[in-house]
């Protein structure tokens, strides 16, 4: 019993280590120390999730039953990796340039961003992967019970109920790990450093475990290399009796599955950091596979000889050391199998959950929620929640499958059956990468035909006769038609069932794919995407240029806020605006910006959804000249030239528009300055005139009554006060602008400050209401409160003066985001026209013709004050009316008590 306890303890420690490694890698990545996380070695090791528990334990079992044939499972991937120049290079380049999130996303992107295709691929992937997850759970429980059996000889100690609870614990633990480290960020295209690092570590563990067992068997048990070879020579598997069909078929099958398995796609393409890593993986990964299979045959041969007849050969890796009393080695071997199982399940769950949430849950949710949500990050939360629930769902399905199948031998055959299932993606995938003529119709037809044949000929019969398909159907075919028997389709009798299904499903798949592609006509977007995929090395740009007008930027911002969250979207937009040299939050919707936005959205909700959402607003993709170029290759050079001219002239037009804007702004400011100067002269002149007139009267008239003298002096005094106030304002502004201002730092709460501002601005009346959020206003401030109050008073009285709604309602919404305190002042009026937004913060700027008679210095002073306080005030587009945002850095406020 002690060995079992130690095993449980070691397992726990190992799991803790796994969490620690993932956590450490995530932390290092967040701190920017990613150099070592991005090494090609880590990439190569992460590919090793190809070697699941099925290969770790099962390879020896496979070898014990059919000799050297097991090696085909590794030869296929070896050939694919060595042939990286053909396919993988292209696949990775496409995946990176299109920001692909899963294999379903890739296929849907290629065929015109069709969601139907994505759903089909997703469903097939889930059907193919669930049993595989069950297989991993089974291997962990089997190996655990093998340990238990050795630790306590006598009656079998691991009844079924016990096994199932082990499986449940493992599934739950994996779900926690995957959710913790696999759904950190919504953008599936961002790297999961923690997960990848943990998998790389597990790759090392399983290789070491298998090598250790192998070395022990060869030099410990058999007594050297020559003796081992002798043992193989005298064992049951001495004769090389491999059917050519199975040898070639299995090699091809494993090569296809290597490219198509969702989990392989995840680590190979989605998590790829750098294309150059392929160069290393091209030789290092075949080397890894070679080492993984080096000792399989010796272990199988020695196991067959040493172990009592009837022992499960699948567990030789574990039972051989146990039998010899090498408990430490057995525990290491157990950890190897455990690593293989867990890493596969984690990555498969991430890959599947991304597919399910992006292609099934999100489209449904977006369809039903319509445009209900306006400015909030709710879509984001829905997507993350969907992904987390999908992870739990996928693992739960795997567990249920394991329970129902009872962990029997039906599962063992599942590995190859799942391979045939995912191999159905290959024609659409390769066709899409290499043949421009492949169309959506073809891909749909091929995938459906292949999937149906696979289900009928291999998957459903694998549950045994009379579970899904009746026994008579197996023997005589449906309605007695012998040609349709699941194991002998079209009279192909006596074939190996796996080869039979592989042959027919791929033939139907390829046939339907070619026929469908030849007979249908692709839509423009499909043709563009096709050109982009096939000629990825020539045109690494994005397809489907968008063209839009200025008016749509605001709508785009509203939509992007819903998906990415208000902050991220505003950051993206203002960054783009800054790049274009435009101030504020609204960049010009240039094709480049729209593409960038679509990519950013695609990282969160998948290409198909992102494309549909942008198309809704911009009104359909315009096919730019450069994209047409890609389609019409024949007249390439001439058209290329003219397209460059076109692009140049477009750019010139854009620059001219920007210049015109700048010029307009200058002219406006100049006009305003003239207006202001005349206003100032007028304002200065009027009091001056009366001061002069009355002081002359006082000087020249001798017989003034005391009452008159007092009256005239009072007038002179009032006028000087008015003058002083005007000059104070000007002085204030110039002092602020020159930075010669002393801040008088005080403490107070935001609520009290807003109270003061509302009161000073005239308070609420029946025509003017202020809506406030007293809960959020409970923020302590430590800054120059008088100056800040001046800003608030200005904003409130502006809303009071200029808001054209009746009753005018001003909402004051404070929020603390990250290191910023943000207070939004939003009214319900008509807002500020787009062309005025650029100049309202300029000096002397007044909207309309001095309706309310200000000097036009208020907002300019506000801007200067906020700059002195370390924050800023800006106009916030995309709201219900005029909206101003005051931001203050966190240093200016103390943490709320």
């Amino acid at each position, binding site marked *: 019993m002690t060995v079992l306890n130690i095993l449980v303890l070691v397992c726990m420690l190992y799991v803790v280590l796994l969490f620690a490694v993932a956590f450490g890698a995530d932390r290092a990545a967040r701190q920017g120390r990613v150099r070592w996380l991005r090494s090609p070695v880590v990439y190569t090791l992460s590919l090793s999730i190809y070697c699941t528990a099925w290969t770790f334990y099962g390879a020896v079992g496979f070898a014990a039953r059919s000799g050297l044939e097991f090696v085909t499972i590794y030869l296929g991937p070896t050939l*694919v990796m*060595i042939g990286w120049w053909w396919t993988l290079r292209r696949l990775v380049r496409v995946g990176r340039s299109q920001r692909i999130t899963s294999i379903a996303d890739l296929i849907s992107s290629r065929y015109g961003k069709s969601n139907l295709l994505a759903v089909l691929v997703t469903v097939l992937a889930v059907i193919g992967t669930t049993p595989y997850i069950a297989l991993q759970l089974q291997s962990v429980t089997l190996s655990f019970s093998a340990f238990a059996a050795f630790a306590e000889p006598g009656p079998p100690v691991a009844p079924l109920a016990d096994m199932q609870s082990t499986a449940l614990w493992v599934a739950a633990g994996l779900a926690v790990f995957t959710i913790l480290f696999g759904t950190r960020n919504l953008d599936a295209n961002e790297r999961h450093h923690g997960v990848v690092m943990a998998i790389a570590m597990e790759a090392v563990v399983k290789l070491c475990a298998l090598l250790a067992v192998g070395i022990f068997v060869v030099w410990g048990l058999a007594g050297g290399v020559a003796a081992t070879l002798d043992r193989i020579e005298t064992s049951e598997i*001495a004769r090389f009796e491999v059917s050519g069909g199975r*040898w070639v078929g299995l090699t091809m099958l494993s090569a296809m599955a290597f490219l198509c398995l969702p989990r392989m796609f995840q680590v190979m393409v989605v998590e790829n950091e750098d294309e150059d890593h392929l160069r290393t993986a091209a030789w290092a990964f075949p080397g890894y596979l070679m080492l993984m299979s080096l000792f399989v045959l010796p272990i199988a041969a020695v196991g067959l000889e040493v172990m009592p007849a009837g022992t499960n050969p699948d567990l030789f890796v574990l039972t051989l050391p146990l039998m010899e009393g090498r408990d430490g080695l057995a525990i290491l071997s157990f950890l190897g199998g455990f690593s293989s199982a867990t890493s596969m399940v984690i990555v498969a769950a991430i890959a599947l959950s991304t597919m399910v949430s992006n292609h099934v849950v999100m489209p449904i949710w977006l369809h039903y929620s319509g445009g209900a949500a306006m400015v909030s990050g709710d879509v984001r939360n829905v997507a993350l929640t969907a992904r987390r629930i999908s992870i739990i769902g996928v693992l739960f399905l795997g567990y249920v499958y394991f329970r129902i199948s009872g962990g029997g031998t039906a599962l063992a055959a599942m590995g190859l059956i799942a391979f045939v299932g995912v191999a159905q993606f290959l024609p659409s995938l390769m066709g899409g990468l290499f043949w421009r003529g492949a169309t959506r119709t073809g891909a749909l037809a091929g995938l459906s035909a292949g999937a149906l044949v696979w289900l009928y000929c291999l998957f459903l019969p694998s549950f045994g006769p009379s579970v899904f398909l009746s026994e008579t159907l197996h023997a005589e075919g449906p309605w007695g038609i012998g040609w349709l028997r699941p194991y002998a389709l079209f009279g192909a009798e006596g074939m190996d069932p796996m080869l039979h299904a592989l042959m027919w499903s791929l033939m139907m798949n390829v046939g339907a794919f070619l026929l469908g592609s030849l007979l249908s006509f692709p839509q423009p977007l499909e043709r563009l995407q096709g050109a982009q995929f096939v000629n990825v090395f020539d045109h690494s740009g994005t397809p489907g240029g968008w063209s839009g007008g200025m008016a749509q930027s605001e709508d785009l911002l509203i939509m992007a806020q819903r998906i990415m969250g208000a902050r991220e979207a505003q950051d993206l937009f203002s960054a783009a605006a800054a790049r274009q040299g435009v101030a504020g939050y609204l960049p010009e919707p240039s094709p480049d910006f729209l593409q960038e936005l679509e990519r950013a959205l695609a990282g969160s909700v998948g290409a198909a959804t992102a494309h549909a959402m942008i198309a809704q607003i911009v009104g359909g993709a315009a096919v730019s000249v450069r994209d047409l170029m890609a389609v019409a290759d024949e007249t390439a050079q001439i058209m290329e030239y003219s397209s460059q001219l076109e692009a140049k002239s477009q750019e010139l037009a854009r620059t001219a528009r920007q210049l015109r804007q700048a010029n307009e702004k200058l002219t406006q400011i100049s006009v305003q300055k003239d207006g202001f100067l005349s206003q100032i002269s007028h304002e200065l002149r009027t009091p001056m005139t009366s001061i002069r007139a009355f002081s002359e009267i006082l000087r020249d008239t001798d017989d003034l009554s005391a009452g008159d003298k007092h009256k005239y002096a009072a007038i002179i005094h009032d006028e000087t006060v008015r003058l002083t106030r005007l000059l104070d304002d000007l002085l204030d502004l110039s002092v602020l602008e020159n930075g010669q201002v002393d801040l008088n730092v005080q403490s107070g709460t935001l609520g009290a400050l807003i109270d003061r501002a509302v009161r000073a601005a005239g308070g609420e009346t029946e025509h003017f209401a202020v809506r406030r959020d007293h809960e959020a206003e409970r923020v302590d401030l430590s800054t120059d409160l008088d100056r800040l109050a001046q800003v608030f008073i200005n904003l409130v009285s502006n809303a009071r003066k200029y808001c054209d709604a009746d009753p005018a309602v001003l909402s004051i919404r404070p929020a603390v985001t990250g290191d910023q305190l943000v207070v939004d002042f939003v009214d319900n009026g008509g807002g500020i026209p787009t062309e005025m937004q650029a100049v309202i913060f300029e000096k002397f700027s007044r909207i309309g013709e001095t309706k309310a008679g200000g000097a036009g210095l208020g907002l300019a002073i506000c801007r200067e004050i906020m700059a002195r306080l370390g924050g800023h005030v800006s106009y916030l587009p995309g709201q219900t009316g005029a909206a101003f945002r005051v931001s203050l850095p966190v240093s200016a406020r103390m943490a709320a008590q």
Partner: protein
Amino acid sequence: MSRERVSVFLARRSYRRRRMADAARLLPLAGGVLFCVPLLWKASDEGARTVGAMIYIFVLWVLLVVVSALVSRHLRHGDGEREGEEGSGGGGME
């Protein structure tokens, strides 16, 4: 973007690089064929032995790894991609 006329003869370096790309394409084909060679051995009198096939397969495997490492050392990222596409067939036809 523009596809200028490429001269017929290339400098020694880029010539070598292109042949390396060819080698990278050939390698999996050669490997695939060579891995099937043991299937032919069955024709001999009493059938092939597993041990022989195993040694053959593993030696070939190591050779492939070594050759692949040598070839990919010469195919740095970003090199010869344009010309690489011309020979790959399939690309650009519709």
